[in-house]
């Protein structure tokens, strides 16, 4: 029976080519626009560390003075050197890492490569196991090396290829800002999206090329980059950043279990109270412990324009669907005579209804296919944009499936009302009027 309906549908669609093309085009445009924006949104709002993001938290305390105090505001987005190190050494979490961004002049040993600047991350030993960073060669540094201010460096796969031709470079020397560092590890491909650990750096860029122990970066006077927020007598001076009242570091902890999260929150409160008693903190105790995904939400990591575009595209799809409902209604009712004959010859209401739904399904499928094509074109256009997330805009298998379900589902839904109206036709009346 389905084959027969399909045949009828195709015949009917062929009979009125312009109308059919119009309906298919409208659906395709709506689907194409929606799928393009939804894919971008999906990629950008994804989980950077599937499987472990639920155990990662971003502790915040408020060390500022009363200058500009307003009740109910969130604590600063970063921590000071003092608080960061206090929390790091307290070791109250399963894992913890203190970090900040930077830029270092790399001076290659080879004379044929000019010196260049690389993005760097200065951090502590737990960074690698906590964020499950994959290694191609070598190993991460240890806590002992952190404490010993070891001149060691972990480099990205990309930098390893540029400097060492992709070979195992552990043990080699890398000169940065006139200081020699020993390469102890090379990362494998690692691209958390968004790059969650530092909201002040490009959220959708690749990870840094150079990783150096935080303590060693201070010793070697490696330049800090990113946001520095000072108050009171703070001047944002990189050389005295250990003592100035400025927040410029990110602190992440791993907490396996809800009770540990609660306990850590209590610890932050006690810590703040203690610091207040010491006179370091002046504001009322204000702590926060957002999870990774929550932290991404709070900071609106996904660009507002992308969300706006998604809503816009969905609105566009809605108009296209309403349009299709109208056109299908017109089309089906126009065929009242033909449907009347079918009904008179014994087709039940249900059969007529199914036949019309098959017809709208065919339109949906065609619209979906064409829409998919448009979505690929749309994503290609997005990739041409110079924004930092442009290169991420790729269709995944899941989104492909969603496209089809959305296209066919939406069109079937759109076909419901016209089909129902059309099968209400009284056969006798139709036949009589002929």
């Amino acid at each position: 029976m389905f084959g027969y309906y399909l045949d009828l549908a195709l015949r009917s669609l062929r009979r009125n080519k312009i109308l059919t093309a119009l309906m298919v085009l409208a659906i395709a445009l709506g689907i194409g626009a929606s799928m393009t924006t939804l894919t971008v949104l999906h990629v950008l709002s994804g989980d950077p560390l599937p499987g472990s993001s639920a155990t990662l938290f971003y502790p915040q305390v408020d060390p500022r003075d009363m200058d500009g105090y307003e009740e109910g505001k969130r604590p600063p987005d970063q921590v000071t050197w003092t608080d960061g190190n206090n929390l790091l050494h307290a070791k109250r979490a399963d894992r913890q890492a203190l970090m900040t961004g930077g830029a270092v002049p790399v001076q290659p040993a080879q004379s044929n490569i000019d010196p260049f600047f690389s993005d760097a991350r200065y951090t502590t030993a737990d960074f690698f196991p906590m964020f499950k960073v994959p290694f191609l060669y070598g190993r991460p540094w240890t806590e002992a090396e952190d404490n010993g201010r070891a001149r060691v460096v972990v480099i990205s796969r990309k930098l390893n290829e540029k400097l060492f031709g992709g070979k195992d470079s552990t043990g080699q020397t890398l000169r940065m800002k006139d200081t020699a560092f020993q390469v102890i590890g090379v990362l494998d491909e690692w691209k958390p999206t968004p790059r969650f650990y530092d909201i002040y750096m490009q959220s959708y860029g690749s990870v840094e090329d150079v990783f150096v122990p935080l303590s060693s970066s201070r010793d070697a006077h490696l330049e800090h980059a990113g946001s520095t927020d000072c108050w009171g007598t703070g001047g944002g001076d990189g050389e005295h950043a250990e003592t100035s009242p400025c927040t410029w570091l990110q602190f992440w902890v791993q907490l396996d279990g809800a009770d540990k999260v609660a306990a850590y929150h209590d610890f932050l409160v006690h810590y703040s109270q203690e610091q207040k008693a010491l006179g370091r903190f002046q504001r009322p105790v204000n702590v926060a412990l957002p999870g990774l995904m929550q932290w991404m939400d709070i900071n609106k990591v996904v660009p507002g324009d992308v969300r706006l575009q998604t809503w816009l595209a969905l609105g566009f799809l809605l108009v296209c669907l309403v349009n299709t409902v109208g056109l299908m209604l017109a089309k089906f009712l126009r065929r009242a005579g033909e449907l009347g004959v079918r009904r008179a010859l014994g087709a039940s209401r249900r059969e007529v209804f199914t036949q019309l739904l098959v017809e709208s399904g065919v339109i949906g499928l065609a619209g979906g296919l064409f829409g998919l094509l448009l979505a690929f074109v749309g994503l290609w256009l997005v990739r041409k944009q110079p924004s930092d997330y442009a290169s991420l805009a790729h269709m995944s298998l899941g989104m492909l499936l969603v496209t089809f379900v959305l296209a066919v589902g939406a069109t079937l839904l759109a076909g419901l009302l016209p089909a129902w109206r059309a099968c209400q036709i009284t056969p006798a009346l139709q036949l009589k009027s002929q």
Partner: protein
Amino acid sequence: MQIKPILSALRRHKAGTFLIAMQIALTLAIVCNALFIIHQRVAHLSEPTGIDEANIFIVKNEWVGAPDSARVDAMMRADLQTLRQVPGVQDATPSNSYPLRGSGWDDGVKLKPDQLQDSSGSTIYFADEHFIDTLGLKLIAGRNFRADEIGHMDMRYKLAPPVVIITRALADKLFPGGQAVGKTIYLIGGPATVVGVVDLLQAQSVERWASDFAYRSVIIPERLTLSLGSFYIVRARPGQLDAAMRAAGKALFAQNPRRVIADDDGLLSFSEVRSRAYESDRGMAILMGVISIVLLAVTAAGIVGLTSFWVGQRRRQIGVRRALGATRQDILHYFMTENLLISCAGVLVGTVLAIAMNLWMVTRFEMHRLSLSYLVTGVVILLLLGQGAVLAPALRASRVPPVEATRSV
């Protein structure tokens, strides 16, 4: 034209009428808001920086190695001397940032040392005595820095210059109606005397968060000596920008090779800076424009389709009316009025929807309130679109001959 028969005819096509009205309403809501967004973005990206954009380029210079502050200052002065002698270069100045760069140093300005809240935010531009001439700023009061006032500082020192030049926007905010020259303002490091006021100089960021202090800048008579490097703002002689840019990079390397001027953003003409700063706004405006046009086209096509169907369905009635004496004009008017009635209903609902959608966006996307003129524009566009779309089927209807009344379909 009698409206009552039209209404009773429409009552027999409830679903179709409702769908067209609904489509018009949704289209109006989306198009109004899209137009509004386009206008906002275009207005935003047309804001002037206040500098001589056509002739300016930026050198991003990074030092290799770890020079100390005094050494950096010496190297910077040597660089500037070199740059000013490059053929085609009119003048050059060092700075920590420039308008539209998107990052830099923003700081609060106070009028009294013990004030708890800042009087205003501002962008801090480090400069020397060539800054005003290089950028092509207009000094509207007071004087420029003297060469002997220019010092150098690194981040170790507090921001406490003895004198500063501020922009008119900041002067108006701090000293409304008054004279700013000679007054004292308090920066984070201490007091500074205002010696000059320049007309327009945009802040380094044009993002929404910086809109509170959009044109409020403070010019500091210091070279900021970061061991990492800084920017040179260079003004080329008219028409010699490209040549000056190429020559400047070469001259700097010839003078001192221990530096990095990156291939991708080491040398940027200001027009590139502008297009980079506003790329997302421009992209959004274009996208909104395309969506609006396609949306209007889809709606028009929908109206044509549905009305054509109605005309086909009513051929006999039209024939009867014609036979009873109705003119072609009457039939044409009938369909036009019918569409106008539906459109009006749709537009009415659409206005409410547009306002609701805008209010929702105000809360979600930091949007401004929709102004009435966009609603009016949108309504006019959609009513005209409806009339235009219905014209073809209505004309076809008017050509139905009276003899149709006697035929059976």
